[in-house]
């Protein structure tokens, strides 16, 4: 593990793929964020990643990202500097310089958004995050599960409208209020939240997930370069398993409470011929069932990959006829404690199911 390394343009390509895989169907596509990050590197800006274990205990770290609807972020693309703008607003509030930035969510586009603020503000990015994947709600993250404060937090929109939450009861309240503000801001906004200490980050973060996302992307790119199917090496490298293989035959969607909920039905092919797999999703894939048998549940990762290229298929892009392989990866340890399962386990999503870790020999 390197103590510090600079992101290269090739790393960005690998990160894009890795972040999409860890997005488990949600988290938004990092493509446009990557384009801007690439442009910033071209201009000579640097994105330095540091190992969280090397953070001084009294360092000040801020989580940076975007919240809102992924459909909006592919159409109303970001301005570019709103993330750093939010960080600077927090700095002014606490009266101290921030030492490093961290992603709250390595799955999807929030994996790279801290890097934009890092390049523009000359700040390092911590190799880790608060989920090790993607989740639909703000409070579903290890920083809050393990008791870090949710305020102060800043939201900034493309017009540089800034809203500062000076004090909030907890992350649930921040989520409720931030969502209301975000809708007014056009359903997408940049956030910077709660300067935390280096000690707190080391205690609560899912560690080394930037490295993990980059490694996932590198495995996929290498297999594609050799014109081999990337899924077997991907599954092997992440200690996961293939859950199912087949063709999408139905996608049912409904929007409730602002989330894209639904279920996708996959008809088995080859070894799975004659069987059907159903996956429930709420922005991200939540539960995979084969008949009555539950194969995989949150917080374990359920990824729907295009069969030949291993390209992850976002829940919004699921469509009849796609040939897919469904793979499961075990959740990182900080998500599977009793304390964490109350927030990110199946019951937190309204299912009358208890979490059973992914059986790695299906």
């Amino acid at each position, binding site marked *: 593990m390197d103590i510090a390394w600079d992101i290269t343009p090739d790393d960005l390509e690998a990160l894009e793929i890795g972040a999409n895989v860890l997005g488990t169907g949600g988290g938004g596509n990092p493509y446009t964020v990557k384009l801007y990050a690439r442009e910033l590197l071209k201009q000579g800006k640097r994105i330095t990643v540091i190992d969280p274990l090397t953070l001084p205990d009294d360092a000040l770290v801020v989580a940076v990202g975007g919240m809102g609807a992924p459909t909006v972020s592919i159409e109303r693309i970001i*301005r570019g500097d709103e993330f750093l703008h939010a960080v600077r607003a927090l700095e002014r509030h606490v009266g101290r310089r921030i030492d490093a930035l961290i992603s709250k969510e390595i799955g999807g586009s929030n994996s790279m958004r801290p890097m934009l603020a890092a390049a523009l503000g000359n700040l390092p990015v911590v190799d880790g995050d608060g989920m090790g994947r993607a989740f639909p709600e703000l409070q579903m993250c290890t920083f809050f599960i393990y008791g870090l404060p949710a305020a102060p937090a800043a939201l900034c929109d493309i017009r540089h409208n800034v809203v500062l939450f000076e004090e909030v009861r907890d992350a649930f309240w921040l989520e409720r209020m931030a969502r209301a503000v975000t809708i007014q801001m056009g359903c997408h906004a940049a956030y910077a939240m709660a300067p935390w200490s280096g000690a707190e980050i080391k205690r609560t973060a899912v560690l080394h997930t930037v490295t993990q996302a980059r490694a996932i992307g590198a495995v996929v790119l290498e297999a594609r370069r050799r014109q081999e199917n990337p899924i077997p090496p991907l599954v092997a490298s992440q200690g996961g398993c293939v859950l199912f293989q087949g063709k999408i035959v139905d996608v049912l969607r409904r929007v409730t409470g602002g989330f894209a909920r639904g279920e996708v039905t996959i008809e088995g092919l080859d070894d799975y011929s004659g069987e059907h797999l159903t996956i429930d999703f709420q922005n991200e894939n939540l539960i995979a069932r084969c008949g009555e048998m539950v194969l995989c549940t949150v917080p374990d990762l359920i990824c729907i990959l295009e069969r030949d290229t291993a390209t992850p298929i976002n829940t919004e892009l699921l469509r009849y006829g796609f040939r897919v392989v469904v793979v499961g990866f075990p959740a990182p340890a900080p998500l599977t404690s009793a304390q964490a399962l109350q927030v990110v386990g199946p019951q937190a999503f309204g299912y009358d199911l208890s979490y059973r870790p992914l059986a790695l020999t299906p």
Partner: protein
Amino acid sequence: MQQRIGIDVGGTNTDAVLMQGQEVVGWVKTLTTADVTSGIVTALQELLQQTSAVPGAIRGVMIGTTHFTNAVVQRRHLTPVAVVRLGLPATECVPPLTDWPEDLRELVGQATYMLPGGHEVDGRPIVPFEPQAMEDAVYDIKARGLTDVAITSVFSPVDPSLERQATAIVQRMVPEALVTLSCDIGRLGLLERENAAVMNACLRRMGRTTVQAFRQALAIVGLHAPLFLTQNDGTLMSAAYAEQYPVLTFASGPTNSMRGAAFLTGVADAMVIDIGGTTADVGALVKGFPRPASLAVEVGGVRTNFRMPDVYSFGLGGGSIITAEPLRIGPQSVGYELTSQALAFGGTVLTASDIGLAAGLAVFGAVHLLHGLAPSFIQRCVDTIGQMIADSVDRMKISAAPVPLIAVGGGSFLVPDALAGVSQVLRAPHYAVANAVGAAIAQISGEVDHTVTLGTRSRDEALAQAKALAVERAVTAGAHPDTVQVIDVEEIPLTYLPSNALRIRVKAVGDLQLPE
């Protein structure tokens, strides 16, 4: 039985077939000419003569063309475009054409304008549109002498009004300008829609002259039947529509040839390779239709979000230029100049066709002109070509099990009879004109794309309503009511909005009902 003519205008060959009902009555293959018209005239005259068909009895002419795709891929005949985006301060960090190949950007997109405007997802303005800023941009566009303009506004699929306002300003100040609006072409996804609009704009002048050439050719041979062009999904659009939206012809070639291959062999599940003069396309047929690409598709290195057949194209065709030491086959091609430039036709360029001829795979031209080629070199070329084909088929296969491969296209003599991973190589009757057959059997579609609020009605009701409307539109466009089927349903929930808004796109297709 109704007679119709299908024509495929490729980079190298122009093919035409006359079909009566389900039967191929006659076919011809001629060379594409630089002026397009005379090649089509020749093909049509030969076809009419060969079949003794009466022009007045032809009920429809369907043309499939790779002209526009090739123009982008080869960077030829493209007009510089003024690219206008309305959306600031949003989108500022990713200017138009950011991810385009540099050579294409230099050729097409030197003038880009990012202006305040655009909408939020719920229809509110991002910031007010500034007509003055648009006018300033148009002064600059005018000063640069640009007359092709692409306008893209953020969330124009939800509210197209700003693109129309901006278009009115362009048309008032530069009356001769041809403006492409992104909302008329693409779907949500700003960069991909903008890319499609810019590509359409850079092809508009060529679209005009090309469609005009098609019309002229029909007039010369006395054909007055309605003229259609095939689109990327294998369905038809009127010639007038195609003139405005040439970009919609992208990838219609592979779709036509795969549909034609299925029709001609009666095999609905197989791999298909179509080798033309410049490129080869490989795809998978599933139940008689090409397997659609699941994700973003690149054309000439540019990312788009059209729904297109999942096709792998590589630079191998009858006209591929071969150089020795190191051995290179394609992607450069002599194209329609095959019969003047290739060695076997007395030219000076070694092509894949010359190798096919020298190796005894095909018969044309003057074989004695090829005596200078060493047998070992010919074998190396044949082996390399076979390997290129085997690799590309393997890449597109759906499973490891051996599958039939249908070989079509004028260059399909380059496909060896035995290939790894292929159960048998099928050579369809009329294989050389599968493309034109696919165009002749193309269907007509009706589409619905609208946003509904679920409250008073259920998702099922909204879907049923949209499907019925799509079927109705297909019939209005000329489809036979008994043959119309819904082939594509897409729902996009608009998350983070208080109401249950759902965007529904439905496509229905049916056989074209031609006037008696």
